[in-house]
Each structure stands twice: as structure tokens, then as C-alpha cells.
């Protein structure tokens, strides 16, 4: 209804705005409280990672990947290493694979916790943010112990990992996993059952399955539409096929589904970690890798299930020690494209709910 055509107003949400979680700018045209048009402006954080990579040895690229999705660095590390290993057809020692699985799934938990916290903060609830950060802090401390960094881990190497687990670390992870598994219901009590929260996210920002596929979405955004697509299952890599776990899938494709799948994935990831810590084998943590990695000439693509969707690395090599071209498929960037479609016709309040639930990380979007 808009009996009276009020004047449209152009409002800049971002780059300096609390709810864009970074330097994201959304130029919305509003009519009263209703969004008539939304134009995402990206690039405030662009560093030219892909171009820089062309001038770097493979090992040097790894620290750069840390800075893509900076809340899920481990997964980024892995994507690159995995691609290079694939290109080299390299065997990775079992212990290294287990350590990788453990840190990757812990990383996924940490990333999802961060999503939960910030999403609820966007929706006006303060406490879950702090609770989520308490849990995340424990994971970060675990990472800190294993690789010496809290955010930009630079942990993986082509053919394995850089560090072995310090003494007692595996036990710590085991304890944490058990403790965290008990914590998850608290979130359901605090958040999932809250009618106010439900009213805000149910049926909001609905992505249809067709749209999800058409926009090449992936990850939770795609799974929330009911499309069962998880690369860990669908195109297995690493040793995921050795664990018992399920892929949570939504029904409606709305913000609630996206929120809820995040929580369920935390549970599933913890599940994987719990299985993995029981079976970590002994052995080397890095395979037989030449001192200077030279990828045979050719084109290689590997995609892994990142925290936000399919994180793909497309590598073109001319046989030198540096890639000829490195293209990164950043899930946040791809998922972001649907934003305009989701936002048009919504109210300003829904903007926040939708933007938050699409869950973008600007480091990844801008690369």
C-alpha cells in the first residue's frame, strides 16, 4: 500500500554502518520504510589477491588466503593446498589429514558461532553475541596453540600441515567438543524458541530453490532452500567419507532456515571432530614435497565446502613455481548477488535480517 506516493530517498547503508560487518556499502532507495531498490557496492576491501598470487610462490600464497574469509582461515588454507596437491597428485599423510579435518571443522564451528553472534546482534539481542564469542574464543585458543595465531593461521602446507598437535592438544579438543555439544541446546533455548526472533526471521528473505541454483549459490544459503548440496558429501575430498555425519537441509529458504542450519552444522561439525579426535593416527604430518613446488602446466579446479559455500580454487599453471593465474571462487561474493532481489520490496528492518542471514564476509567478497 502506498496510497500517497512519498518521495523516494536514497540512503547509504555502509560503508561505515554497524550492520554491514565491514566495509560493505548498500545504496538503498527507500520509500518511507520500504526498499524500492538496493544496489550493493563492493570493493572497499579489494587487495587484488588473485593478481598478487601470480607473483608469489605457492607457499607464499597461503598467508594471503588467510585473509579471504578471515573468520574461516583454515578452510581457505586448505582449499589452496588441496588444489596444489591435486595438481601435483600428491599423497597427504593420514595424520596430517586428520589434523586438517579437526581444525577445519573446528574452524567451521567458530565461523558459524560468529555468524550466530553477529546475526543476533543485528537483530538486537546482545547476549547471544557474547555467549557465542566465549565459545569461539576457546576454539581460537586451540588454534593459537597449534599454529601460533588467533586469526590468520597459515597452518596448512602443500602436502600436509605445518605443525603437529602440541602435547595434550588432542585431549583439549576432545574436552572442548564434548563441552560444546552440551552448549548448543542453550542457544535453542535462548534464541530458537524466542517468538520475537522467530517473527523476525520466519518467512523473511525467502530464496527459492530455482533462484538459489540460478544465482549459483552454495553452502547454507543453498541448503536452506532444501537443496541437498554439500561438497563434503557430493564431491568428497579429504577423508570426510570416513565419518558418520549428516547434511542439515532447510525447507523454506528463509532466514530462519539459514540460522537453524548454522546451528545444526555446528552440531554436525562437532560430531565429525569428536569422531576424528578418537582416531588420529601417528605418523608424519607432511608428505614428500619438493622444496620448491612447481605445478605441472595445466588447469586445475578444486572446490571445497567452505564455511559459506563452495570455496573453489582455479589454478592455471605454466609449470613454473608461481601460478600463471589463480582464480578464487569466493562463496560470499557469489551469494551476495541475490541480495538485490531479496531486498526489493522489503522494509528497512528486514534489510538487516536478510543481509545478516546471507552471511557475507567482506574479506572474501572483495578479495
Amino acid at each position: 500500500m502506498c496510497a500517497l506516493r512519498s518521495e523516494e530517498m536514497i540512503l547509504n547503508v555502509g560503508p561505515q554502518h554497524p550492520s554491514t560487518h565491514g566495509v560493505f556499502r548498500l545504496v538503498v532507495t527507500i520509500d518511507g520504510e520500504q526498499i524500492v531498490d538496493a544496489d550493493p557496492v563492493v570493493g572497499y576491501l579489494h587487495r587484488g589477491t588473485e593478481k598478487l598470487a601470480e607473483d608469489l610462490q605457492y607457499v607464499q600464497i597461503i598467508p594471503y588466503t588467510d585473509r579471504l574469509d578471515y573468520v574461516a582461515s583454515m578452510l581457505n588454507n586448505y582449499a589452496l593446498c588441496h588444489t596444489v596437491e591435486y595438481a601435483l597428485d600428491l599423497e597427504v599423510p593420514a595424520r596430517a589429514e586428520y589434523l586438517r579435518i579437526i581444525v577445519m571443522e573446528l574452524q567451521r564451528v567458530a565461523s558459524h558461532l560468529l555468524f550466530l553472534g553477529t546475526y543476533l546482534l543485528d537483530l538486537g539481542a546482545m547476549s547471544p553475541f557474547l555467549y557465542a564469542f566465549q565459545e569461539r574464543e576457546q576454539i581460537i585458543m586451540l588454534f593459537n596453540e597449534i599454529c601460533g595465531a588467533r586469526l590468520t593461521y597459515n597452518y596448512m602446507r602443500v602436502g600436509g600441515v605445518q605443525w603437529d598437535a602440541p602435547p595434550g592438544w588432542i585431549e583439549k579438543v576432545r574436552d572442548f567438543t564434548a563441552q560444546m555439544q552440551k552448549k548448543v541446546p542453550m542457544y535453542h533455548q535462548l534464541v530458537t524458541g524466542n517468538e520475537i526472533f522467530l517473527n523476525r526471521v520466519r518467512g523473511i528473505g525467502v530464496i527459492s530453490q530455482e533462484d538459489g541454483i540460478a544465482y549459483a549459490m552454495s553452502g547454507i544459503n543453498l541448503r536452506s532452500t532444501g537443496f541437498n548440496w554439500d561438497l563434503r558429501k557430493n564431491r568428497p575430498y579429504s577423508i570426510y567419507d570416513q565419518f558418520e555425519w549428516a547434511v542439515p537441509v532447510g525447507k523454506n529458504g528463509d532466514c530462519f532456515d539459514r540460522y537453524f542450519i548454522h546451528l545444526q552444522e555446528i552440531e554436525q561439525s562437532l560430531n565429525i571432530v569428536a569422531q576424528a579426535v578418537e582416531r588420529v593416527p601417528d605418523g608424519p604430518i607432511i608428505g614428500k614435497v619438493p622444496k620448491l613446488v612447481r605445478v605441472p602446466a595445466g588447469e586445475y579446479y578444486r572446490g571445497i565446502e567452505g564455511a559459506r559455500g563452495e570455496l573453489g580454487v582455479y589454478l592455471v599453471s605454466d609449470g613454473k613455481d608461481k601460478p600463471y593465474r589463480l582464480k578464487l571462487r569466493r562463496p560470499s561474493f557469489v551469494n551476495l548477488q541475490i541480495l538485490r532481489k531479496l531486498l526489493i520490496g522489503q522494509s528497512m528492518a528486514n534489510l538487516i535480517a536478510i543481509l545478516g542471514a546471507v552471511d557475507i564476509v567482506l574479506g572474501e567478497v572483495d578479495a
Partner: protein
Amino acid sequence: MFGIFKGLGVTFGQMTKKKVTLQYPDVRINMPERYRGIHQFIPELCIVCNQCARICPTDCISLSGTRNEDKKLRIDTYDINFEICILCDLCVEVCPTEAILMTPRFELASYTRDELYKDMEWLYGNHLGEFGSHEQAMAAQAAREAEHAAAAAANGVEPGGDS
């Protein structure tokens, strides 16, 4: 309706829980051994092989050395620009002599950018902590590492990587 009350119960229950806040300047997180803080450079050990400068993804290390009378290269200058250093640990990884190390120190705030440009002198003196000199620090570290190696051996784990 009950969802709201459940939530109220959760928050109320949290009131009595242990607080996680650390009084930061007074209390600090005990950074783990592997923590990748600000570098420490030990000129005595440096053979001026330039590997660290080459591996550095951001080219923040610059060094120069002169050939000594005994044909050995001696380090003259060793600067790290912390404006662009990403503390990735690669330089430490490649250093054949462990002349460059990373310390648990992470505080690097300064009022001007220039101050972030650290020279050999500063890097050498970085993070001596309670130790009076570098030698003492080295000895302590060696002791710690031996300890760890023993512990690792006790766990039946090969010390891996570059350790």
C-alpha cells in the same frame, strides 16, 4: 510465549556464572609457545642467506650484509617494516640458522608509522623479557624445547615440521 521466558531463564542463569573477562593490561593471556608475535632477530646466527627476504610474501624484510675477511657474510642491516608484515611465520620457517624467531609479543601500537619500521637493533633487543641478554634467553628457550621434545617423546609423537 514460553520461548521468551526460557530465554529469560538462560540470561538469568548466566548472572551467577564465572566471568570470562580478562583485565587486559593487568592480566594477559598466556600466549602459547608457538605464538607468532613480533620477530626477534639474532644477528650472530644470521648467515645473510637472504631466504627470509625472498620468502616473505609482502617483502617487508630487507637486509644487507658484507663479506667478512673470513669470507663469511656478516649482517649489516636487517629491517622489518611492520606496517606490512603479516606475521606469517614463513621467514622463520625458511631460516636455516634460526636467526629470526617469533616472540609472544603482540603489542605494536604506535603513534606514527615511522615507528613501525624496526631495525636490527630493535629486533635484536625485542622480547628479552626477564632475560638480561640474548644468550640467557636462548638458553632458556633451548631448555624449554628440550622439555617439550621429551614430553612429545613421552607421548610417542615425532617432533614434526621444522622443530
